């Protein structure tokens, strides 16, 4: 029992006893890895729902005069597509999902700071999801995921349910943010200083405060909209002295940082994947880490760039414009650093690597159009058109989602102990690249030529391009379905991965896959950043992890 003897009795050595019952092990588990997998699976389900909605949208837009759905159905559909993708797929997938699964292991902790809280924030998620979709049955919300009043005051009863569902989801995110922040601040293994943290941990570390602060602000906005709708408290109703612009301020104060909640973890993911498959250190570690912080801070000062046409004081628009443009600088630094990371490497084009390269290209396109839109005079033309739709789909579907897919292929062995099928993976990547670009690239010029967003029927001159987009969108869907099928199939039939199939250097790869409930037999000590491929691994105390020495016994208390 040498293992038991090394207990210092501190939190780092505090081990949950192994869960016996199925219920405690897989359903109401407090183990961050199981919770992470629960998040990922739930997000997969919601992504299929939202993807189906997206396809309904594309089918409707096949013909300029629509006719596939009634306009009201169409409005409900794109509202649900947006809401689901933002709050019930991307955000939980990148934070609750892969965050939970990986970062505690990467900092050498045995669990997050508040495992029970973690379980609670997960179980809020499916409940909120059911509430959101139940709003379909009671007059679905039709005002788009932004739900601008007074339009959202006209929406059906479902709109209030929408508020409640997203509010609940927000509580979950806030708890997750608090949990992650405390974990990273307090529970790093000995020697794991901030400049030795893997960049994925940096991504989560910067995202957590955004989750914590911004999401609460959204909660306030939703509560205000709810009481306005249900009890007529005139926050937003102009005929009673309220202000529609107030909602836009409150909403975007959350929803702009939310954009960074959706992208910063993805930055972290590909910062893990590039070094692994280029066999060389990430270029400019510090710059990548600090630029994330800069983006997060600036992210709180630019919300009103969504409101350039809404009628703010002109003098107010200028600072927002300039601050928004400033964000291009740290973002550019990241892009250049990743590109340079490829330089002089030995690039192995596994599926995660392909997806990461795809991320780099597509996200750069989205970033550039972002700078376009920051310039007020141009935004006056492009605002509310398909140009915007193209821009944020390049950032979210081409950035966040692509990062998540890369992470799925990359960390799948850590969940299941098996690899996903590589050739299917490569197929899914190429299909995704083709479908994604074919769907969203034409939207740039469609928007500039005069096609506004959220139109159920549109000017026939745009029909050809819309048909092209729709056909490509089917390709994109096929790719996602292939990946999902691949993930399910590989649980049973994937080839055994062993502890470290990619020969990566961060801590999670130094322990068996799937990861045992106690993570580490001994809490390791760290004495360098993980990316020096020339050096031996910078960890001590991991000798027994892959041997069959007895698991550690829970500390007595």
């Amino acid at each position, binding site marked *: 029992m040498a293992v038991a003897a090394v207990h210092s009795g501190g939190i780092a050595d505090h081990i949950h006893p192994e869960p016996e019952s199925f219920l405690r092990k897989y359903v109401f588990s407090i183990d961050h890895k199981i919770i992470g997998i629960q998040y990922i699976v739930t997000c997969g389900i919601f992504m299929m729902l939202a993807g189906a909605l997206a396809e309904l949208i594309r089918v409707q837009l096949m013909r300029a005069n629509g006719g596939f759905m009634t306009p009201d159905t169409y409005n409900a559909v794109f509202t649900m597509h947006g809401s689901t993708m933002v709050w019930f797929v991307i955000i939980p997938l990148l934070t609750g999902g892969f965050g939970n699964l990986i970062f505690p292991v990467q900092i050498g902790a045995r669990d997050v700071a508040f495992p029970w809280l973690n379980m609670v924030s997960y179980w809020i998620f499916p409940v909120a999801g059911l509430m959101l979709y139940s709003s379909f049955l009671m007059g679905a919300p039709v005002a788009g995921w932004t739900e601008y009043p007074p339009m959202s005051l006209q929406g059906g009863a479902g709109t209030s349910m929408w508020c409640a569902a997203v509010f609940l989801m927000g509580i979950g995110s806030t708890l997750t943010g608090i949990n992650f922040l405390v974990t990273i601040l307090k529970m790093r293994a000995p020697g794991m200083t901030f400049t030795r943290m893997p960049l994925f941990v940096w991504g989560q570390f910067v995202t957590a405060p955004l989750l914590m602060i911004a999401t609460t602000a959204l909660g306030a906005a939703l509560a205000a909209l709810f009481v306005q709708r249900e009890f007529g408290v005139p926050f937003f109703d102009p005929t009673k002295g309220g202000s529609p612009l107030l909602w836009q301020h409150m909403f975007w104060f959350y929803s702009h940082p939310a954009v960074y909640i959706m992208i910063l973890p993805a930055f972290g993911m590909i910062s893990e994947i590039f070094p692994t498959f280029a066999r060389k*250190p990430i270029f400019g570690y510090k710059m990548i880490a600090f630029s994330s912080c800069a983006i997060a801070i600036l992210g709180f000062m630019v919300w009103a760039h969504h409101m350039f046409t809404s009628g703010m004081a002109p003098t107010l628009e200028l600072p927002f414009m300039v601050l928004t443009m400033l964000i291009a600088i740290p973002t550019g630094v990241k892009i250049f650093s990743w590109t340079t990371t490829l330089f002089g490497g030995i690039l192995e084009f596994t599926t995660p690597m392909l997806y990461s390269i795809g991320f780099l290209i597509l996200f750069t396109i989205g970033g550039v159009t972002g700078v376009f839109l920051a310039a007020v005079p141009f935004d006056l*033309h492009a605002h509310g058109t398909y140009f915007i739709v193209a821009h944020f789909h390049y950032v979210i579907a081409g950035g966040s989602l692509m990062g998540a897919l890369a992470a799925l292929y990359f960390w799948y062995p850590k969940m299941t102990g098996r690899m996903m099928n590589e050739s299917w993976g490569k197929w899914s990547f190429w299909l995704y690249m083709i479908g994604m670009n074919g769907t969203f690239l034409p939207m740039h010029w469609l928007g500039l030529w005069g096609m*506004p967003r959220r139109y159920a029927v549109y000017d026939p001159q745009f029909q050809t391009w819309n048909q092209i987009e729709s056909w490509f969108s089917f390709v994109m869907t096929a790719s996602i379905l292939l990946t999902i099928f691949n993930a399910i199939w590989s649980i049973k039939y994937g080839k055994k991965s062993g502890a470290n199939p990619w020969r990566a250097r961060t801590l999670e790869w130094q322990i068996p896959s799937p990861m045992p409930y106690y993570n580490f037999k001994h809490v390791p000590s760290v004495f360098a950043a993980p990316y020096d491929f020339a050096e031996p691994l910078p960890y001590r105390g991991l000798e027994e992890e892959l041997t069959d020495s007895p698991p550690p016994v829970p500390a007595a208390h």
Partner: protein
Amino acid sequence: MHLDRGFWTATAVIVLLGIVAIFWWIYAPIQSIMPEAVDRARQIDLLYRFLAASGTALLVAVIGYILYFVFRFRKRPTHSPDDIGLQIHDNHKLEFWWTLIPAMYIVVLAAISVNLFFQIEPVNAQGNTLVIEALGHQWYYTFRYPGINGEVKEMHLPLGQPITLHVSSYDVIHSFWVPEMRLKADMVPGLINTLVFTPTRPGKYELLCTEFCGTLHGDMRSGTPNDPAYIYIDPPGKYKAWYDATQRANAHMSNAIAVASAGAVSLTGGDAAAGKSLFQTKCSACHALGPFTQKIVGPGLKGVLHDPAHPNLVNGDKATPDDVAKILQNGFNGPMGTMPNQTANGLTDKDIANLVAFLNSLK
């Protein structure tokens, strides 16, 4: 080191492509695809050319290098699994430059945008403008012209005449967008947004709503059965003809509610102080004392009699004390709602005199 001939060739190709892209955007025939219908459009297109040129050049560079590295540094069969790449952690000179150059680019871009911004924004509208109102409804537009009763469903603009366009809405948020004008303003109920421009190209243009406004949002555009109205930029003569015809056609429509007390009110001896307290109790529910654009139900009344940007009252009359009194007396069926008349507001003639004196005192 890997900065070999291959690298420099790639760099040369990338630079070449970048230059091509820049020139393409400089000479791109934007106008033939999207005519520029107002004076501002040209400058906005110049900004767009600048953005597109620099943006495309950046994309060419980043994507070009990615593809080159992917090709050049791919894992080859000759590599043993234990081979590692170039162990460089960072290069401060390089990082310094690729922080500084984007920063400088941002400064230039910000300068251009701010400069253009001040030309576009109605910070100070010039005097002799034609003040028109565009109102959003679910799901169509109406327009109000000075001197024309009621609301018209078609917008005609005289060529070369500076326009001050106030947009607002009756119900939910709509928006006013004419792609050829490169200008857009949301129509927010309870708020009046302003566009200032001068039409420069005759023609018939489509008007679109870009702010989601409910079931028929997609039909809220010119030419649909729902909202057939187009926007016409006419030569002055043609415009005059349309204006006179419409004025005659709408003459029978009265903006006024049945006259309460016959004869004009005498404004002599109006007491501004009394008017002020009266305003608080009778008017402040619908009218702010803020600027015109600060709308509650009716417009803000700061300087209603002294605002060069708004030479006309909402009914098109010149802003004089007598006309203000006329509105107070008879009420007014306004685009932003109904202003009750004297009896409905319970105002004596004396009250009206006091109110006008008070409003006149607001500069």
